[in-house]
Each structure stands twice: as structure tokens, then as C-alpha cells.
């Protein structure tokens, strides 16, 4: 698994917050300034938890850009600076 990617497929909603905590700690210690969180699309609940987390912790984020210029709404790019 790429060090800058957290794939949340298969995680239960109540695990998501802790998983993102763990990921952010790891990414920071890798000195990465940019990381990706794959929420998938699904029901949108996992994505909402992640977005709430990022807002609360004040990390800027955007959807990953596809080569056709559209947003990939299943992957969030987080800026850690």
C-alpha cells in the first residue's frame, strides 16, 4: 500500500475516525505534505466522517482530479502543511 494513501474500503463507520488519526500520524512522520484518503462512494457515510474530521482538524482538502479534469469524488487529497 502506498505510504500516502489510506484505503477505507472495508472499514466500519465507527473505525474511520481512529483510522484517519492513525494515518495522519504516520503520514506526518513520513514528512509527506500531501496524502490521499480513499473513501469510495458507497452510501457516503464514510466520506462524510472523513470530511467532518478534516474540517474539525482544519486540514485543507480537495477531491482528486481525474485526467479528464473532473473530480474523483471517491478520493480526497489532504494537504498537511
Amino acid at each position, binding site marked *: 500500500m502506498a505510504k500516502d494513501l489510506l484505503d477505507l474500503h472495508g*472499514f466500519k463507520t465507527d473505525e474511520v475516525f*481512529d483510522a484517519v488519526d492513525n494515518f495522519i500520524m504516520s503520514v*506526518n*512522520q513520513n514528512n509527506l505534505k500531501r496524502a490521499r484518503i480513499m473513501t469510495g462512494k458507497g452510501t457516503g457515510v464514510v466520506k462524510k466522517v472523513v470530511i467532518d474530521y478534516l474540517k*474539525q482538524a482544519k486540514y485543507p482538502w480537495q477531491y482528486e482530479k481525474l485526467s479528464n479534469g473532473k473530480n474523483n469524488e471517491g478520493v480526497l487529497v489532504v494537504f498537511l502543511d
Partner: protein
Amino acid sequence: MATPFIELKNVSKNFVLESGTEIRVLKDINLSLDQENLIAILGPSGSGKSTCLRVMCGLLKPDSGDVLSNGKPLEGTNYDVALVFQSFALFPWETVYNNIELALSPLKLPEREARARVKKAIDLVGLEGFEEAYPRELAGGMKQRVGIARALVMERPILFLDEPFSSLDILTADTMRWEMVNIWQSKNTAVRTMVLVTHNIQEAVYMAKRILIMGSNPGHIRAELVNDLAYPRDENGPAFRRMVSRIHELIAESVIPDMTTPSAYTATSMIPKVVREPPIETIPNVQIGAVIGLVEAITDQGGTADIFELGPKIGKDYGTTLYMVKAAELLDLVDTPKHMVILTDLGRRFVDGDINVRKRVLHELFGALKIVQLTTNLLRIEETLRIQIETLTERVSEWLPNENPHQIVETLVSWGRFAEYFGYNDDTKEVYLDVGQETL
């Protein structure tokens, strides 16, 4: 004295809710995590203990105040810290071995060293034989062992445990508490200081040498106790029980004080004392059905109960019980001198009555609450006697700026519906004054 691993100096933290309302979750927190200690941060839910922990990790930045790591301002996340989570948060598609090894990836260790570290962590938590298992094959206790091994493998001096045993069964949790004390006591790991975040008083007294007790609204350190009982601790021993009782009393004093003192955060605090109106009381986030159940349970015991013994009788933890008692007291159904809970005359009238009498009594008691009166006034000035729930939430956030207005409105409307005071239409998201007609 050695420099503390982590210090928080006058740390305050606010959260912005979805509605845009800002609430203060931590206020002026001062604490230091000394080296070579096992510390518990104990508090009811909503007291900000997990937020406090995440500030110490560097996962959240405080809005004011300083976070020091080894005497220097903390930048980014805290490299000295490893975390164990309540929900385990394991990668479901990775084996036990890989879940632990993945924690090492930022360290870029030679493969041989990484393997040796993973093996040691697996030995320490008793996971031998499960290396190739997937999380779905494991019971909760074994999953948490993986979570602990994943933290230990990083060989950090500080280990944070965020409610680590609260989703485990009682026996497994008991075993793991003792194992964690052993891990801390042994010189076989890098862990020098362990910090347990918990709402479980017994757990804090069983494990910790220093206990920081947090209070709510906003989260603050209410008291600090040193727990010098020798390990292994006997939960039935008199000294252990004395310590538990002392903490019970400290928490009870903060949630249901004997003397009602006006909150420092009332909406009326700017009005001179002589004409100051009663403060706006917050409503504990408990269901009215649970409050009625509590009052009935106290009646079954002759109208008097010891608050410390009530929880096990009604099947609730101490924190929840306290908030149920607080709700009953707010409604004047019970009185709480010291740690006793005594049914009031109104409480007796309520319990003795049939459903209609109960509703009438509750209607009367509910209507006496300042927050209900303010809400009623808000509805009365509308021609339709109804407002959007968001409007009410905004007003509540002005009346009680340090509380979660969504939670209060939810409870207010739920109690109001039972007391036939307010109604709520989920389709239009409107709260309305219940004057005996569904539609006005």
C-alpha cells in the same frame, strides 16, 4: 526534575459545528505528562478528554495556549507518541502480522530489524500463532491486542490508550488492564509513560498512578489525584474502594452540585446581580423515558437511593446515571443531598399517577424550566406558533454558548413532545407550540 514529555499550558480548543456554531470543548487546560508514570484522564463523555489527547498528539492544534514536547513547542504530530484506539481501526484486508508491520513503514528500517520488532510486539501481547489471521477472524480482545502490538512496535516512550477496553467484554477487559500495567512496569519495552483516557472510574483506579479528572462544558481539569496503591490492586480492598468513592463524589459534585450555583456561562451574566434572572439551565442529553425509569427504580427502593449504587441497579454506567439523576433533579422529581437521591413530593405524585397525571405533572415541571419559557416565547411571537428547528438551534447556541445546541434542541423537543408542550414536524423541520392541534 526531568522535563515532562508533554505539557499543555492554558490550552483552549473550539469546534465549529455543521450549523456554523462554534462551541468551546476545552478551556484553559494545564497539564504535564511526567516521565515514568501511568496516568489516567478520567471524565464523563463530552468532557473533552479525547480532544485533549489528540491535542497532545499534535492531531489537533489548540485555538489558544501552548503544547510543549520535551520542553519545546510541538510542531506537527508528536513523534514520541504511539496510539491505541477504541475501535482498533485495523486494515481488514491485511493479516495480523502486516497490520503491525505497516506501523513501521515511516521508519524505513532494514527488513531484519523490522521483522525482529514485529516478532517482539507479537510476543509481548500474546498473539503468537495468529500472525496470518485476518481481523475478521479475531474476537474483540484479540483485535485490540493487534492494536496494542501495532503501537508497541513503534517503540515510542509515550503510549496513549483512548478508551481501549470499552468495546470489550468485562472479563477480557479485566485481563487486558492487568497486562497493560505489566507492560508499563516491565523494562522490556520503550514505553516510559502510559496515558489512559477513560470514563470508567474502576479502570482508572485499577491502572493509574496519577488520575486527572475532567469536567464538562467546556472541558477542564477538575481535580488531580495521586494513586499510590500497590500493584496488583485489589478492587475489593478498602483503600481501592475509598479511592473510587472519592472520585465518585468529585464527579457527582460537578454534575449535580448540592447548591445550585449560577453557571458562569449564562446568557444573563451581564445583567447586574439585583435584577438577574434565573440562569438558563442546560438539559442533560437523556431520554425522558430513562428519567421516568430512574424515578420508578428509586420508588422501588422506598424513595431513597445511594447514587453510587444506582448505576448497577438500572444497568447504566456511572456517568450516564449521573446525567439521568441530573435530569430528574432539574425537573424537581428528585433531590440530591450529598450522594443520596431522594424522591420529592412532586416525584411521588408523578410516580403514583396514571399516564394522564404523569403527563400533567411533567407538563407543569417542564414549563417551569427557563429554556422552555424562552422557547415558548420564541414560538408565541410567530403567527403560526412555529419556527424552523435551525432557528431554535441558533437561539439555543446564543443562550448556552458552550454547549452543543443540536443536542440540547433534540432533547428539548423530545421532552417537550412527551410533556405535550412542543410538537415537531420532521417533514417541514418545524418546532411548534402544542396547543392540542397538530396543524395550526
